[in-house]
């Protein structure tokens, strides 16, 4: 019923591609998958849980029963699915500000894609091809992906400290505790309700 669950937003966009263009995109996807540095900028956007593009070829749409009419589709489709923290605008802004070239390589084969800069036209395009989420489950609505990663680091550090502290003198523990605190001091933000509209 909604694209927003707690601090997380689910974006689904489906765009038509002329079938002769699909193999070109597939080549680019192959390179992207095997050359890690190409992914670095996307991975560096820490508020994105994941982003996934999938090509659905026009013959690949399921026909669930004989009663379902046979369709002859003229286009292959590119499905984009992403979960992120923050606002819709912030997400697309970040795409246009730091990933413009990469995104153009992915989406330019889709019909009527205006390129990712200037951002206003890009936003309009996404809003036209976006589908709303019917059912959306999130395990940690009061946490972002940064919070979850930070919690994992804090847990591991607490366990380390616990494992090693039984034999320590008070002075040794004091020093070990300081080391522990310095190790986790960047990871102690609170969880909670996010800002409105994010």
């Amino acid at each position, binding site marked *: 019923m909604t694209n927003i669950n707690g*601090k997380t937003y689910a974006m689904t966009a489906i765009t038509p591609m002329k079938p002769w263009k699909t193999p070109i995109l597939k080549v680019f996807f192959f390179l992207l998958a095997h050359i890690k540095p190409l992914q670095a*900028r996307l991975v*560096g956007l*820490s*508020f994105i849980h994941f982003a996934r593009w999938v090509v659905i070829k026009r013959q690949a749409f399921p026909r669930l029963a004989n009663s379902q009419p046979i369709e002859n589709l003229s286009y292959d489709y590119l499905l984009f699915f992403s979960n992120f*923290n*923050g*606002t819709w*605008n*912030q997400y697309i*802004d*970040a795409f*246009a*500000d*730091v990933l413009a070239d990469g995104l153009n390589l992915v989406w330019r084969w889709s019909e009527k894609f205006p390129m990712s*800069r*200037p*951002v*206003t036209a890009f936003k309009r395009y996404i809003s036209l091809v976006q589908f709303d989420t019917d059912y959306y489950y999130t395990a940690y609505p009061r*946490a*972002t992906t*940064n*919070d979850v990663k*930070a919690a994992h680091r804090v847990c591991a550090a607490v366990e380390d400290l616990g494992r090693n502290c039984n034999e320590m003198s008070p002075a040794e523990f004091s020093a070990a505790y*300081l*080391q522990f*605190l*310095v190790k986790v*001091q*960047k*990871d*102690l*933000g*609170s*969880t*909670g*309700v*996010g*800002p*409105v*509209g*994010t």
Partner: protein
Amino acid sequence: MAKLNAADIQGFAMRGYTFPVARFVLMGIANAEGGRALLLRILDQVTTAERWDVKPDSTLNIAFTYAGLVRMGLPDATLLSFPVEFVQGMKARAPILEDSGNSAPERWDAVWRDSQVHVWVAIYGESLDVLARRCATLRQFLQETGGARILYEQDASALPDANGGYSTKEHFGYTDGFGNPDFEGADRKSQPGQGKLTADGKWVPLATGEFLLGYPDEAGEIPAGPVPHLLAKSGTFMVYRKLHQNVATFRHYLDEHGSRYAGGKEKLAAKFVGRWRDGTPLLLSPDKEDPAIVTNPARSTNFTYGEDSGGSRCPIGAHMRRVNPRDAFGFGGALINRRRIMRRGLPYGVYTPPDQPANDADEHGVIFIVLNASISRQFEFVQQQWIQYGNDSHQGSDRDPLMGAHNGQGKFMIQGDTNASNPPYMCTALPSFVETRGGDYFFMPSLTALRLIATNSVDPR
């Protein structure tokens, strides 16, 4: 970059006047005809951005709320073309700004709570006498035209220093007003650290369109603004906020935690903001104030956070690092160049020297003014995502230690290292040090646009 037409831009949008006193006159317009007559009278009083051979003794600038532009009789097509946040006004945006609790609009000053301000006239001057003279002229215009009535006059003034002059400090004792963004066409020298970073680590001015309508912005677009173009060009949007400061609460919190924190009270105060109270950036001088840095424009804003990614010098959640993260989010700063705001403002109210007992209830705070091309993309974003929330800086839901709406529940983590004088320290049970008392969103037109409005000749397309 073409040279900007300084004679057509209101000076307030282009430079900080550095006058010690100001009066903000808030008015309601009677009707379109009277409002236009008044604006025609005021036109030649408006201070432009033209270069000063001799600095005048005072300035005058003018801006309108959306309700004010409606009252001035602008065409429907124009009114419908303004950005939604400006149309709604600041009160309606309270949920986004997190103006709640003591900052909620129903608790604002009467002028902002119970009435609708249409026009803002700002008079800055070198003395109270000069202000009085300019205000008398303004009142005379009001009388002659019957165009508007004064709802409230907000005085603001730099705080006194020890020698009977004016200081650059605010009520909490911090030296204020270091970082304002450089942009293309501004008539002043670029200062390293105030514009945007280039790929090779240099500082260059931001695009004009981040601050003035009608020019390309950092995204290569002309910012969204009203039609016709002539009405928008060289104008800007202004946020006016009256921020009350709980001086006693702040001093008490600093005393209490300063005695527990091994770095001491002054270092704790510095960790809140990212600058020592004299203005020295923690990043450049983590252990002591350094006047040589503060007084040197080539150094006072010339730093990045890359070498302090752990936050042991300047905490990751410190005020200054939140509102202008520079390179802290990576990508050479590309994620923040469209979130910069130009600030103006002055303290208001009673000053309590550090050795006198302070209280929260007195009238004292800061008139905080922002100029930007998009209130929602720039000011509101910084306020909502970076001051009242911490995910972009990896601090979860922790808020800005100084400006956040903490309501006694706030938390602020000060990163440290293994040096005894700089340990990690967690500030808990943070109260709200600052509360909103009122304000609104304004459009500050160019001189051309003011004349169009005053003569009822905005093209009604």
